[in-house]
């Protein structure tokens, strides 16, 4: 089927490639619980925060996927998909669709295939991927730096200036940390590293950002070796 837009972008990309990626989305086990058709009522758009500030519409995702319009699908995969807030307000859909769920799968396919759109969208974000994968916590107190959050006001300056002392002035002992959100035991970190490798998640990072992959594997190898594991020998099970 042709695109609903006569001037669809990415005309130079072979339809077979677009079809391959489309089928990869549809092959995800969650696909069958994300889309049941579309009434075109627009309730999802009314509820969507991203639709208010971006050229973005959850309804378009539902319609394009339902119509199997691989050309527009490819355009969404490369452009507006990354504007979604993943809040799932669109699950207000009276047809029980989850446009946000469709986008989760599409994003995963873009990352797995090392698409440039994913690399560009996640360029500034990749250090967060390093943080969560290396420590087991997504954000940490030492990220509260004025140059990272200049728009959060002078309180960030105060926190960063007093970080060491203020962290020790919190009663729960697990929170006396600055590089991690809480104190994660070494054994737990080891188990997390094994999950990244065994699940194939580490391979996804290599495809997405080789620089982050190299730093991450260095950190992982050190701990794994201490516990008698060779990262290269740990088999991917998924």
């Amino acid at each position, binding site marked *: 089927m042709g695109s609903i837009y006569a001037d669809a972008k990415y005309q130079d990309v072979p339809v077979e490639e677009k079809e391959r990626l489309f089928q990869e989305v549809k092959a995800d086990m969650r696909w069958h619980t994300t889309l049941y058709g579309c009434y075109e009522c627009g309730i999802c758009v009314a509820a969507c925060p991203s639709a208010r500030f971006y050229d973005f519409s959850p309804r378009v995702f539902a319609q394009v996927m339902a119509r199997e319009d691989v050309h527009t699908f490819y355009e969404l995969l490369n452009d507006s998909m990354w504007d979604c807030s993943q*809040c799932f307000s669109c699950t207000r859909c009276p047809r029980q669709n989850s446009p946000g769920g469709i986008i989760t799968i599409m994003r995963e396919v873009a990352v797995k295939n090392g698409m440039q759109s994913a690399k560009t969208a996640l360029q500034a974000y990749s250090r967060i991927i390093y943080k969560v994968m290396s420590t087991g916590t997504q954000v940490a107190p030492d990220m509260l730096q004025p140059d990272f959050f200049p728009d959060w006001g002078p309180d960030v300056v105060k926190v960063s200036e007093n970080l060491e002392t203020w962290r020790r002035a*919190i009663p*729960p002992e697990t929170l006396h940390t600055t590089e991690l959100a*809480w104190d994660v035991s070494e054994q737990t970190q080891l188990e997390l590293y094994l999950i990244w490798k065994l*699940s194939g998640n580490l391979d996804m990072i290599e495809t997405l950002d080789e620089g982050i992959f190299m730093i991450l594997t260095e950190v992982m190898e050190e701990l794994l070796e201490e516990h008698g594991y060779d990262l290269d020998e740990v088999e991917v099970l998924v």
Partner: protein
Amino acid sequence: MSSKLNVINPGPTKAKDRFFDRKGEVPTEYFKDQLFDLEAKGEIIVHRIEEGNYVEVDTKYGRKKKIPIQNTWHHKSCGQCGHIPGYSTSIFWLHRQLGYNYYDPKDQTSCTAWNYYASSASNSAAQAAIAIRNFAQAYQDGYFPLIHCGTSYGHYKETRNEILHHQGLRDQVRRILDKLGKPLVFPEEIVHYSEWVHAMRDQIKARQKLDLSNVVVTVHPACHYHKLVVEDAIYDRDLYDGQRTATVSGIVKALGADLQDYSTWHDCCGFGFRHILVSRDFSRSFATLRKIERMKEEANPDVVITHDTGCVTTLDKSQFAAKAHNRNVGIPVLSDSQFAALAMGAHPYKVCQLHWHGVDNRPLMEKMGIDHEKAWAEFEEQVERIKSGEIEFLSWEDAE
């Protein structure tokens, strides 16, 4: 004159007299049927809440949900612990004050779902293995998981659906957990800490020290609490006629504060996962234009109370830049745990750690009857003791 004209039309019933008791089939399947079925087949272990250690509450479609009272394994939130530490500290403080046993584990990782919703740089097997590693650890530690983060709560419920419906995923996760030497365990309920606060609201009220009757409150229900796998969020027909989740509003009402409504209550906060870290122009615009300014115009609250990491962060931190543009902002944002702790007399800085928040919360404290100048001097005194080496850390005894 026709006798018909003498009949007095009773008119529509008042909202308080209208109840919507569900008579028909519940529209969603009941996960527990499948959970216990898989347990009977020997595929998984179901971690049960011990008898006598729970409160039953109503959920969206009228099913009952068990909320554990104590012996809970606190699945902490990276955003709360990292950037709003008074949030989690208040949850622990409430447990200590009510005399309930809990465990604050170091053998916990975050759910990593903030990253997943931001980047999708993970997959279902990794996400499920991380969830079940945490659940297995709680089971082995002998405590029932209590989830602090709204996104972890929503994501774990999605993971539960995937695990229950996909044999292939269960097999993958089992092979991964075998390598870690951990069993495939799923708790019988996924419980958010705010559900515990809701279930404990009468006990919290019984220990209330501050009069909050003149404090105007608006509530922001977290998206990943009530929009992801909707059927086991708490609903109560005494709150909003059962048409909106009762969690958070329940504790605000119980404490006697002046709960006010506003038109954009269903809207997201604008967090966006990736956006709050690297595209904050969007988060800031949505948080201030669609949430804070609407609340200001329609309710003019003294405080916004919410129950998730991202919501407190986005609604609070977004206001600084908006204020610089002379927007109609300036409402402090607290979690329900902090609000309840303050009401029970918790120290605003040693326990609730309000100095980590962005919006000036001193006018709110004055309205609540808290001497913030004295409290800050007390906190500074403890900080000096740490700096001088007299004490290494602020202990619970120092804070209480």
